[in-house]
């Protein structure tokens, strides 16, 4: 084979390998892109975990929103985790408080981290929490229990068609993976 065509082949080969390389990078770049995309659009119920201040807004007494609370324990998390009420009726704009309860029934000291999710995803933009245990982690000694308040209000701009907002919390064991889960969020 002539060196001319060999050079030509090498150049096309390099370009093709370049595409392969770029697509490999893209495959891994999908991970952060996916998270950013979900947070911005509120798709997937991913909530931006941040504290908001209660702004004195007018309470819209004419509207009633059903708020459902769901608690879940992730596999391998030896805690009890529940809410005192599963369902409540609220008016947009009023500040509500609900209590959550967690107890460590294992023989180790364990740190827990609750990860919130909201359905419908759209509602996550109108749900403001002034206080939530999901903002930080809880460390419980064996047998210790804790009552955790969560305060929230629903923005009166919540779209008309939303009548029910479901807040779900999944409690994860953050003892060994503490640094990682922070990085991944």
């Amino acid at each position: 084979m002539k060196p001319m065509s060999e050079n030509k082949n090498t150049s096309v080969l390099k370009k093709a390998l370049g595409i392969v390389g770029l697509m490999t990078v893209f495959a891994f770049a999908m991970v952060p892109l996916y998270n950013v995309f979900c947070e911005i659009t509120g798709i997937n119920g991913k909530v931006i975990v941040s504290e908001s201040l209660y702004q004195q807004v007018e309470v819209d007494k004419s509207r009633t929103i059903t708020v459902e609370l769901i608690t879940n324990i992730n596999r391998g998390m030896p805690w009890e985790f529940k809410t005192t009420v599963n369902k409540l009726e609220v008016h947009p704009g009023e500040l509500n408080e609900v209590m959550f309860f967690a107890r460590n029934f294992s023989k180790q000291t364990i740190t827990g981290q609750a990860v919130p999710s909201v359905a419908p995803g759209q509602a996550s933009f109108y749900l403001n929490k002034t206080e939530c245990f999901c903002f930080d982690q809880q460390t419980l000694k064996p047998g210790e229990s804790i009552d955790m308040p969560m305060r929230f209000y629903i923005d009166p701009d919540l779209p008309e068609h939303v009548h029910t907002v479901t807040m779900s919390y999944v409690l994860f064991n953050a003892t060994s993976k503490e640094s990682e889960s922070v990085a991944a969020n």
Partner: protein
Amino acid sequence: MAHDHHPTGIKRWLFTTNHKDIGTMYLWFSFIMFLIGGLLALGIRLELFQPGLQFWDPNFFNSLTTLHGLIMVFGAVMPAFVGLANWLVPMQIGAPDMALPRMNNFSFWILPFAFTLLLLSLVPQLFPDGPPNFGWTFYAPLSTKYGPASTDFFIFGVHLMGISSIMGAINVIVTVINMRAPGMTLMKMPMFVWTWLITAFLLIMVMPVLAGAVTMMLTDRHFGTSFFDAAGGGDPVMFQHIFWFFGHPEVYIMILPAFGIASHIIPTFSRKPLFGYASMVYATASIAFLSFIVWAHHMFTVGMPVAGELYFMIATMIIAVPTGVKIFNWVATMWKGSITFETPMLFALAFVVLFTLGGVSGVMLAMTPVDKQYHDTYFVVAHFHYVLFPGAIFGTIAAVYYWLPKWTGNMYNEFWGKIHFWWSIIAVNITFFPMHFSGLAGMQRRVPDYNMMFEGFNQLSSIGAFMLGFGQLIFLWILIDCIKGGKGKATDRVWEGAEGLEFTHLPSPAPYHSFEKAPEVK
């Protein structure tokens, strides 16, 4: 030919850099995988002949469906197309060989190792918890947290298959771009070369994504990362997005070369040039482009906003337009042609008709509201088997019959070829047509047991599957018979209406070294 010297025995095959030898090895390899994958499918159909559990425990049934899918996709269909590309692309563009012959050898010889890794999982002494059992889509966390030990062998197997496909695809790209005979402009290239060039671009773009996905699985399983583990801040739904970003272009990788094959065979036996060559090229390119932006239609039931559902539904349906253009062109090619029905033409016609049927059920599945009923039912199984068996595999079989006389110099047995065709087309419909009905009635896929009411449909499917599977032994016999001499010498042109450099410029059989001097293309 005088200079047909090459090493003989095992060394010829181990060290060969000849595109024809490598093509032959790819084709035989894929045929063996086709039989193994078929045996696994018969295992599935055996269990589903009756409701209740008869033969396998449910976990092994899941392994059967998983291995059947993986072996057919990565072991049978993809290597078959790479084998055809090796044989045909250099001859069709007037090149002496593939551009990177040593890489060509390497990309083939990786495959037996890849599939050994995968099939080792069937040895219970090595893997007491069984072969991969999470379906060919290996969704996390089934394949990460809950995957059996053999999952790691599966991961490395997929890595090797990916490397092999990428090298094969790069070879096609370099060959087609650099080694066309003088005068063969891009828009004069035969359709098979065009469809393969586009397929090769799809391959180098999505195989790295698949490699990324299985790498993330591997690190999730063993190195403490949490890409797909919600407990560590990851997301299992993200796995599905990454997988289908690979997976949807992958289904076009498995069909585009078959489009190219039909575009050769139908004009030949209609004795008319292909209708709408340019529109065929553009339709293929648009299908390839669209395949990248529709992936989430596999995930409607996972949940997404209405806007997303609408977008993915409409984008998916748009694919029917370029596909329709192609089908229209094939039909228009036949219009007023003087058609004869040799075996390759029969398979190509069955391809057009039955692929269209699979395409139509695909448009049905694209509709979000009805997909919520169809999802993960046998309707989906019917759909993708109609595009894969009478689509990709009939396409490959048609190609083999069509070019076999050129490869071996002998005519195959036409009588048995027709028997093979009629047997296959009857069996393929008995097997897969009833699945439309059982699926619409609610029978779920990947479950070893089913409600009594589906028994009739499943017995039909099972009978058809056994007919279809054993019918392929006729094909094996025809191949061996043809290689040994068949029905006598083939002419150089082979078929009356055959066009293309391999028929007009080369003798039958094609010499070991062809087009050492490039032909002039007008």
